[in-house]
């Protein structure tokens, strides 16, 4: 290996442009895992449908296996009984993974401020994007997806190995890969 | 070192396949997981097919893969998957088992030695060599003329085997559904 010119070697030039390219690639290939439990899932169907067509964003391949998906779209009320399942699915996903809480119920519990409903999934897993609405219009779901695209574009390849990220996971009591 | 240089390309390939075949065979009997054994056996079949190709018996090579690797071993895998033999079995610790396998192994070795002592291998003469040997037309002609009777007998045997298999495989009342 010859020495690269100053400013073009090391983690500088190559790494950042690779970061960018992969970021763009990732952002255009976000395979959602539709974790649809109620009303918002029906609106997600509309989002997949001809009028809104989520496939334009390269995200029409809903992979129901968490191993293959990039975005966990939590749509609908998550009851406390369901909480562990959501967490399990999140754990089974491979990095990089993003979580979108679609709709009021998933984001905060919505009108269901009751003994059985989890008041927002961010109590058990880290959430990247919240989509308001009950249920959100397909446009808003697409907005959420585009927000994730933005996040993916701006994310460095090494973000998932940083201390901050690990600390974030630990704050959710998610330890490394034990439960996979 | 000089010897190595004199070995032709074909022979290198032959040694490679031979080594692969033997290691695959060893893997088959030494591996503790049945699944791995099957995979090793498939490797053996593959290298045998490679050797067949070196002998210009392409038909045999491919049929070996289709029949043994493609069909029979798949059924083996099937059975293993159904039986779910994931856990190690400790049957080998049984002394009678060890004795029996040693004796049968020795017997086999004895037989092989006896056979090979008597065996006579034609010397290869380039003059008589025909690239058509082992080709499918030759094979077909031979099978349907010289070996007509054994060939037909074998097919009858297969027919019987198939009927028998169907009979055995027929579902009985209260049996398992697969």
């Amino acid at each position: 290996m010859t020495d690269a010119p100053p400013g073009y070697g090391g983690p500088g030039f190559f790494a950042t442009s690779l970061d960018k390219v992969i970021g763009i690639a990732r952002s255009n290939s976000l395979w959602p895992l539709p974790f649809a439990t109620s009303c918002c899932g029906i609106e997600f169907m509309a989002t997949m449908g001809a009028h809104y067509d989520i496939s334009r964003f390269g995200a029409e391949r809903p992979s129901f296996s968490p191993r293959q998906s990039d975005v966990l779209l939590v749509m609908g009320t998550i009851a406390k009984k369901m909480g562990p399942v959501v967490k399990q699915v999140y754990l089974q996903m491979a990095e990089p993974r993003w979580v979108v809480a679609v709709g009021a119920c998933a984001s905060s519990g919505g009108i269901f401020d009751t003994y059985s409903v989890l008041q927002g999934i961010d109590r058990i897993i880290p959430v990247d994007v919240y989509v308001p609405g009950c249920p959100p219009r397909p446009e808003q779901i697409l907005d959420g997806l585009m927000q994730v695209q933005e996040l993916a574009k701006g994310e460095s390849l090494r973000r998932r190995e940083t201390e901050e990220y690990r600390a974030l996971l630990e704050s959710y009591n998610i330890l490394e890969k034990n439960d996979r | 070192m000089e010897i190595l240089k004199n070995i032709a390309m074909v022979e290198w390939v032959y040694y490679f396949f031979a080594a692969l075949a033997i290691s695959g065979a060893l893997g088959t009997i030494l591996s503790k997981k049945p699944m791995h054994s099957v995979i090793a056996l498939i490797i053996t079949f593959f290298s045998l097919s490679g050797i067949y190709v070196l002998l210009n018996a392409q038909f045999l090579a491919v049929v070996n893969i289709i029949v043994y690797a493609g069909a029979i071993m798949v059924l083996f895998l099937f059975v293993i998957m159904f039986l779910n033999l994931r856990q190690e079995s400790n049957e080998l610790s049984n002394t009678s088992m060890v004795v029996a396998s040693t004796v049968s192994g020795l017997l086999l070795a004895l037989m092989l030695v006896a056979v090979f002592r008597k065996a006579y291998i034609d010397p290869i003469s380039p003059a008589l060599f025909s690239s058509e040997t082992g080709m499918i037309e030759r094979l077909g002609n031979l099978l349907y003329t010289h070996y007509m009777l054994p060939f037909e007998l074998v097919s009858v045997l297969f027919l019987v085997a198939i009927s028998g298999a169907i009979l055995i495989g027929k579902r009985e009342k209260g049996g398992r559904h697969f």
Partner: protein
Amino acid sequence: MTENNTIVARTQEEALALNVPLQEENNYTTLNLGPTHPATHGIFQNILTMDGERIVSSEMTVGYIHRAFEKIAERRPFYQITTLTDRMNYCSSPINNMGWHMTVEKLLEVTVPKRAQYIRVIMMELARIADHLICSSIMGVDTGAFSGFLYVMQEREKIYEVYEEMCGARLTTNMGRIGGMERDLSPTAIKKIKDLVYNSLPKVFAEFEELFDRNRIFRDRTIGVGPVSKEMAVSYGFTGPNLRAAGIDYDVRVIEPYSSYEDFEFEIPVGHNGDTYDRYKVRNAEVWESIKIIRQAIENLPEGPYHANENHYYLPPKQAVYQNMEALIYHFKIVMGEIDAPVGEVYHAVEGGNGELGFYLISDGGRAPFRLHFRRPCFIYYQAYGELIKGGTVSDAIPIMSSLNVIAGELDA
């Protein structure tokens, strides 16, 4: 599998039937279907005991989105409960919505004007169409054909456009009010409805049926799969299309007409032996009947007010609130939920997307219901699912589930 030529029973039933000993050690596998399995459309868990590909028994767990509707309802004023009912059967929320309002109107003894009743019928039938469209097309998805689903989803989108025109939301509409509707049908809405029921929907839906009805692959997957006999259907509390598929023509719209359903001519499609194909066919036939009802309703839409003239229960016009003291007082009282509800018990049933949707309301005269119980058809008939899939394969279990049209929000409440 036989061992030493003796037949061995694997289940208790087999042991009894064949009079042979039950084999203790069984070779069954368990398969966990759900709660996030793609085919459960929502979330129910089925732990299947499998013998090869065949299901021996299943244990069902529900409650994964239990949201305590009934508990919340006990501290919500009547008009706010629509937001709950909308989210119960979210595929056909206007039916729930209207059903709830009819229950309250029964309690308050409010008479709804004819026009409002007709608008309600139109909305409810649109909702029924939307519900059945989803259910039938999801069956296509679950049997592997995805395209039909998206064809009819475009029609559902048009139904949502009508809702948008009516109330500004697509799914959780909140469009009814005690005593009538929130808004009248706008000219655009009428145009859209007419376009839907006369032009686009019949065309697309006929095409959808053509895609599946006579396709042998689809028929093989559904005919004879998960049949429900009449007796079983009644015993398990089936109602709605699933009951009618079994051959009983019970329909709340005809047996106990509400909201002017007696004015309309329509037939009750019934199936033959209640298998998956029958359920599918009955739903499709009901779509055609709903189209018929909507055509009649929109053609004969009576003139008049779209809500009852009940100052006590229906919000006064904004302008009046601004200028008129009495209106302002009523406005405050209604919003605060301080309406004078009588003490009493009401049970009112409507024909929901999945069957008899009942509202059992006990009022103690307070601001909120003392007790409000929803008779959710899904919850009641889903318990038969375990019985239905027994002996079938996983490939059977999936179409059975989608043909039952179990909606998690309604199931778990």
